[in-house]
């Protein structure tokens, strides 16, 4: 769009964008005793293709129905619904409990995967007491590439089921050169009782 006065262009198309932010909200999903939350390219206004180089998923106040279950995610290609793309990743975390008896920084080998196809664990068990939840930020780079593996990183904080704070860091890649088209989030077991996941494109 251009703003034109008496045939003189005052502001040309794109002139405003130089001051714009780089994040575009694509879709918000809200859990309500939901078995999973999924974002499918081309469905319900979701864009998950080459439009953006990077996608972020903001998982806000995710509260599980079952105590001690982790938030997890996986992706798939085309119209497949298996959500089982091979991934290799790293996982480390810092922990500190409210009783001040546990404090650590450690790699967690039981949470990583080596060409595994299981859902990817984002944290230790999330507490399910009324005020307990986790909040995470997941970034996926160039999911539509048909040349490269697809890298991802995530970080966040969790109220663990053992009454402690857990700061999480993981990174890895989906070992496929097929474009990703979809992503699904769910708890390790049981429903996502409540919480919001917002999908952003980063341009």
């Amino acid at each position, binding site marked *: 769009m251009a703003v034109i006065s*008496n045939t003189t262009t005052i502001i040309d198309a794109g002139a405003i964008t130089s001051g714009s932010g780089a994040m575009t909200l694509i879709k918000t999903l809200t859990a309500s005793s939901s078995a999973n939350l999924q974002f499918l390219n081309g469905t319900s206004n979701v864009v998950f293709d080459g439009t953006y180089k990077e996608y972020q998923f903001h998982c806000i106040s995710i509260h599980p129905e079952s105590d001690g279950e982790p938030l997890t995610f996986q992706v798939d290609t085309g119209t497949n619904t298996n959500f089982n793309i091979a991934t290799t990743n790293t996982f480390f975390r810092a922990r*500190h409990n409210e009783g001040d008896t546990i404090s650590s*920084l450690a790699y967690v080998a039981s949470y990583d995967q080596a060409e595994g196809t299981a859902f990817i664990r984002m944290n230790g068990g999330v507490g399910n007491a009324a005020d307990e*939840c986790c909040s995470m930020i997941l970034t996926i780079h160039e999911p539509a590439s048909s040349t490269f593996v697809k890298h991802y990183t995530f970080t966040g904080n969790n109220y663990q089921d053992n009454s402690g704070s857990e700061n999480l860091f993981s990174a890895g890649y989906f070992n496929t050169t097929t474009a990703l088209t979809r992503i699904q989030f769910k708890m390790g077991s049981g429903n996502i009782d409540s919480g919001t996941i917002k999908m952003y494109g980063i341009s």
Partner: protein
Amino acid sequence: MAILSNAVEIADAGAFSVGLGSMVLIKTLTASSSGTLSFVHGASSVVFDSTYPIYKFVFSNIHPASTSYFQVNFRDGSTAYDATKTSTSFGAIHAEDNSTPSLAYVAGSDLAEGTGVQRLTTGELNSGNADDSLSGHLHVFNPSSTTFVKHFISNVNYSNNSPASENSYIAGYCNVTAAIDAVQFSMSSGNIDSGLIKLYGIKDS
């Protein structure tokens, strides 16, 4: 800002905001020998409520008056910055003389249900040189929730008093169900000599 043509308003303030992306600058505070820098919802155009689900503070070249820790606290309803917090703390260090590279948990900067200030650094910022400073960010999730604890995650880098580059990761939660309506930054000793703190909201829709 409005765009006018021959006294006719073509576009009003905010008319372009829909296309301006999802990260919105709410407030910038500039330190000038400041004891504290506070972002209080409803004061001085600060928004810190359910308008945004995630808030991001960006620290640019925070320079302390005294060698000290950079720190934060949260207000949960009263006038005091004393929300109960449990947190973790770790950092990586590498000295300018190539000595003492390390990665370790730092118990001195964590809290276990503490109400005092939360350090955002695992070590002390150096004040001795004019070019020493800290930069980084702090995310606060869903601060206005009256149901859940409020998670926060922070990552900063700074020149410590070794001198060395120190990369600190501090995160945790305010263990309260009252809304967090204000955030205050300070040094553990002396003033914030200079620097900027910007508050952004990440748009909800």
